[in-house]
């Protein structure tokens, strides 16, 4: 996360009334959190709404925040919960229910990624993002938490409320599928 005070220290300062500490914190995490949400919901408006909601919850929790875990784990746990709410509201709950099944894990990415995601991107990245968009939600979330949130397997498990083994399994399957997607692209070339 670079130099400067730790996220936890910034959050503590913000809890003490230091608005500048929040700005530093926001500046660090705005991009990764936004991309995490956008690539999960594939809809800019929905992503922005969720993004704003997560940050408002961070703001509201400033007085209750205790640095027991990494700030980023805590923040992505909030984002995860909001995503779950979003999925339920948008009828994606069934997908969440089956993502741990062997069938779901063996599924290859399906469906076209959103057009906005494909615009002006390098080909490999486009392919990767397309493959990412087709991953089961839980696997995609694990991958994004690793890439955007820079969370470890343990932190991914904590943020998503699953065991370490489950988080590890999700991440492993996600990486395997993305690698397979890139490999097939190279073969086509």
């Amino acid at each position, binding site marked *: 996360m670079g130099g400067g005070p730790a996220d936890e220290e910034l959050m503590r300062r913000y809890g003490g*009334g230091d608005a500048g500490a929040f700005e530093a914190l*926001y500046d660090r995490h705005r991009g990764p959190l*936004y991309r995490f949400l956008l690539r999960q919901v594939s809809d800019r408006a929905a992503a922005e709404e969720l*993004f704003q909601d997560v940050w408002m919850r961070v703001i509201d929790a400033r007085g*209750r925040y205790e640095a027991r875990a990494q700030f980023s784990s805590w923040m992505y746990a909030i984002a995860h919960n909001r995503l779950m709410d979003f999925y339920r509201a948008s009828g994606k709950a069934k997908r969440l229910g089956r993502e741990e099944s062997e069938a779901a894990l063996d599924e290859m990415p399906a469906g076209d990624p959103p057009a906005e*995601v494909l615009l*002006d991107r390098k080909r*490999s*990245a486009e392919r990767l993002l397309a493959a*990412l968009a087709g991953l089961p939600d839980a696997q995609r979330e694990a991958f994004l938490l690793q890439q955007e949130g820079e969370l470890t397997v343990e932190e991914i498990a904590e943020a998503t409320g699953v065991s370490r083994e489950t988080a590890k399994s999700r991440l492993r399957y996600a990486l395997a599928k993305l690698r397979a997607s890139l490999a097939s692209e190279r073969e086509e070339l």
Partner: protein
Amino acid sequence: MNDLHDSELSRIYKEGAWPEPSRQIDEAILSASRRAARARHPLAWRWAPPLALAATVVLTFTLVLRVYEEGPEERIASPALPAAPSVLGAEKRAAPAAKEEKTAAPLRAASTPQSAPVPAPAAPPLALKKQAPEAAHADQVPSRLERVREAAPPLQGRQSETQIQPLSAPIHSSEPPSPVTPQPAAAASAPVVSGGAANEAATAGIVIRRSDSPERTPQTWLDDIRKLKAQGRTEEAGRELAEFRKRYPDYGLPDDLR
């Protein structure tokens, strides 16, 4: 590369587009964060009611204690006056025991007058609370006494142990605090023996009142007599002195007024 981290994948992923939230969203969130930071601190808000309650309790307790302490003082003011002359003698006798006596059990001092064949005036229990500040100065008493002895050998020689003994009781029983009692300016200019002894007397159970008050302290009274003498009104001074003796038969008069 291991099975849980693929640097090649990470690189390709990061080469993709980096969408970011719009500036409007940024502004909205940062404005909300600033508003929240300016708003009442959540912790302060949480602790405000108990802190306010604690402050109220402390203030009330202090006020009640003060009223409780001041009330009895008014009541003991007059009864304590006869005890005043005993202070010098009382100090002489009580000083060696003052430390343990005053620091260990102020209440016991009131109920068990060690060297007081003459019953002490009944002092309200609260008056004994006033001994607490005195106890803090208990170790100063011997040195003060030494000073008095050196400065006033005649007085020391004149007062026998039997004279002193009965007079020591009031110091245990009704000695109110000296630190809070304002000393008249005249007392400071009085001779060491008489002034010191009288001051001790004044602090040993007498509530100092203004000189124009009908209840003069012995010290104030003596100062007035001195003034009369200084003005050449010896007859009047004599009358006042006689009146003083009548009023305070046990009071040890300073040398200059004998």
